[in-house]
């Protein structure tokens, strides 16, 4: 069991990610944008993984990754980006900011679990 923060402004995506992860026995915290996620990350302890969308209001995924990497607790925590394949620039931008990897949308629950298996 791992503790995972899932960040996406789209409720359906967030619910799907969260439902899938919970179904696999993980403890999931949800946030709907970068600011919320950052607040959660500061409050929660023992977070094993952050999965974040890139394009979000208030604070986008790239800024979130930068902010997280600046926190002592999240220096090495795996952070996966949810991206679409058209966003290859974003992937690079995210990596430069410190992202561990990405999950390409669209994905199905099995793919999601397989992907997080690579970092948990």
């Amino acid at each position, binding site marked *: 069991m791992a503790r995972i923060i899932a960040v996406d402004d789209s409720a359906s995506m967030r*619910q799907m990610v969260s439902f899938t992860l919970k179904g696999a026995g993980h403890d999931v915290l949800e946030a709907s944008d970068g600011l919320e996620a950052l607040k959660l990350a500061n409050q929660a302890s023992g977070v094993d993984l952050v999965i974040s969308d890139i*394009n979000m209001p208030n604070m986008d995924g790239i800024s979130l990754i930068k902010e997280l990497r600046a926190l002592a607790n999240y220096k090495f925590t795996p952070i996966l980006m949810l991206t679409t394949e058209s966003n290859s620039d974003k992937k690079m931008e995210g990596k430069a900011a410190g992202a561990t990897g990405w999950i390409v949308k669209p994905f199905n629950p099995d793919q999601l679990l397989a992907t997080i298996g690579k970092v948990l």
Partner: protein
Amino acid sequence: MAVDLKQFHQVFIEESVEGLDAMEAALMDLDVESIDDEVINTIFRSAHSIKGGAGTFGFSALAGFTHVLETLLDEVRDGRRGLQAEHVNLLLRSVDCMREMLVLIDDDRNEYTRDAIEVQTALEHVLGETEPKNALCERPEGFAGPYWQIIFKPNTGIIRTGNDPLRLIRDLCALAEYSKVTLLGDCPAISALNTDDCYFHWLIDLDGDALDKTVIEEVFDWVEDDCELIIRNRSHALVRDDGIQTQLNDRWAIHFAPYPHLFQTGNDPLRIFAELCHLGDIISCKLGAEKLPSLKLLDSEKSYLAWDIQLVGPTEKSVIEGVFEWVIGEGDIHITAITAAASSRPELAVDVMPGILAPAISTASTQTPPAKVALADGKPEIKTAKPVQKKAASEASSIRVGIDKIDSLINMVGELVITQSMLGQLGSDFDIASLPKLIEGLSQLEQNTRELQESVMRIRMLPISFAFSRFPRMVRDLGQSLGKKIHLVMQGENTELDKTVMEKIGDPLVHLVRNSVDHGIETAIDRLAKGKPEAGTVTLNAYHQGGNVVIEIIDDGRGLDRDQIAAKGIERGLVNETDVASHSDEQIFDLIFQPGFSTAPQVSDLSGRGVGMDVVKRNIQALNGVVEIQSKKGSGTKIRISLPLTLAILDGQLVRVGSATYIFPLVSIVESMQYREELVNHIAGGCSVFKLRDDYVPIVDLSEAFGNDPISDYRSALMVVVECDGFKVGMLVDELMAQQQVVIKSLEQNYKRIEGISGATILGDGTVALIIDVPGVVRLAGAEKLIQQNSLRKTA
């Protein structure tokens, strides 16, 4: 793990509809001259989210459409492309298309609509014009040079014409040297499946020298009218994947030397190697520790090691590269195939760190197989669950409720529980002395019930902005197509209205606003000539008044022309000339609600021939609402709709007629009085009129109207004066009883439709009382006579 994605469909549809609303609003705000970053970002984000969700939940048609849209928006956002006014129109059309496709999705249909195909082509055309940096669309792999893309969407009945879509596609593919067929569309649930119907459509990519448009069209010659067909020529040079030699090798040498900062991206080399174990066996792993500094200089957060790995297993280079995908650019990675000739025997390298690597590999390899079994088990479960889930999803519709409303509801329930426990205690140990307490408790219960009822009703209430939100776009589009400048003002958008009423008032409002824009507002030239501002104003206003919601549609246009309407009314035989002289303006304007009445000298395709105003009025009356017109020639028109807050509960006046109890909607009652014989004129033809102050009102005997014996003793009867279509009518009843709120039960659903009765309710004593539909009763008693007699009002 079996996760049924269907459970998220409804959320996806709802958030997408919201996203589209936001997108539409932002598009309307968009100033093409200077594009605001925040506005374009909002638009992009909506499209982006919809695309992501559509892809994830398997709506390939919508995903494909939004992909093209997103590509265009992305270029605008990055400043690579400017926008023109016609592009905004195209984007707005895309919003419409996506809405339609979402409706289809709600119906479990993953399809393109005809418009969507057109709009997508137009979007691609825009993209193609200026040769953007990115590819236009998802590139089908395996094509070199220009190729043909065909979307073939047969009608469901195509099989019954003897044409087999698959044969057509086969014929088509036979023409081409290279073809790729993608199946789109979704099968309905087994229960709804008709085996004679074709539910699919196809996306076909073709490449070949023998192809041109006529050749392709010839294939579809027989089914031209039975399908939607889009044939496009794509002109990108794409890479054929059959040209790439796939490298299946069974021995690989991998060199991985990450840069020191690798750990800071959260990546762990050992995990990557664990991934490699899935591809084959690692027969050797050599650790390179040359770069390891002295302990003094060692930074524990940095990576100094390098690895040389030999992997044995039937796999491809690209697959191995996939494992390292996240760390490309984070270190030196070399993957080379060891060919049989070149390979020396695997040197028995010393496994430098067996202690570290071995556990990582072994745990990974022991954990993986069970997970795979679980996957295989899970799949059939999804399939069997499908048909059931499908039905539930299409029937369920949800409503968003503010948390304050839920809180107040919980609060009410809390109070109800307290009252209940108090009454319970009283009941278990009751003596006559505690009677006042009981009465108090009961009155508290009544209050709780009423408050609870109100709170529950409030949940069904939505701000009227839900109905108004479509108008900015509509007025803009209409104005543009008519060449008029129109300013739309919306007031009181937070006024709340029952969801059902909201849904039913939408169409009449659209009609009225359209009329205002089309017929009301003059062209800019006319307006300037009359000394009015160039841009016309249409105001939508909503507010509460008593138990009603009032919606006003006000325009500052040309107003209604009394003489013209009167002349038309005479021509149509709706009024006669003496009437016209005596009628008030409002009565004359009311004529436009008559079926088939139109004064528009020019009929446009927008408003048609006035067909609809009668429907508008009927729809509003069906909601127990009233519509009125005020207008002044040359300065504008105001249409006022008054609607009850809800359809489920009615404030009613109970009356007794003979042995039956009926209920009048309280809003329809003007006054009630004693019947006085001396004020009644009996007129030949059987109908009587009552002199009410300066007015004469026709009298309807309710008992007689419903086919019972007339009221025997008129002298003791009471008369309820009600309003119907602007006329007053007196209804004779035996007795006035209580006024109370009644819950409306549909007679139509439980029994059948009955003229003169709008529904039924159950009274406190368990008996059924019928609710009177006033206009219906008036019709039942002879509406023509009443209208004729109406002229008495002024002439008598």
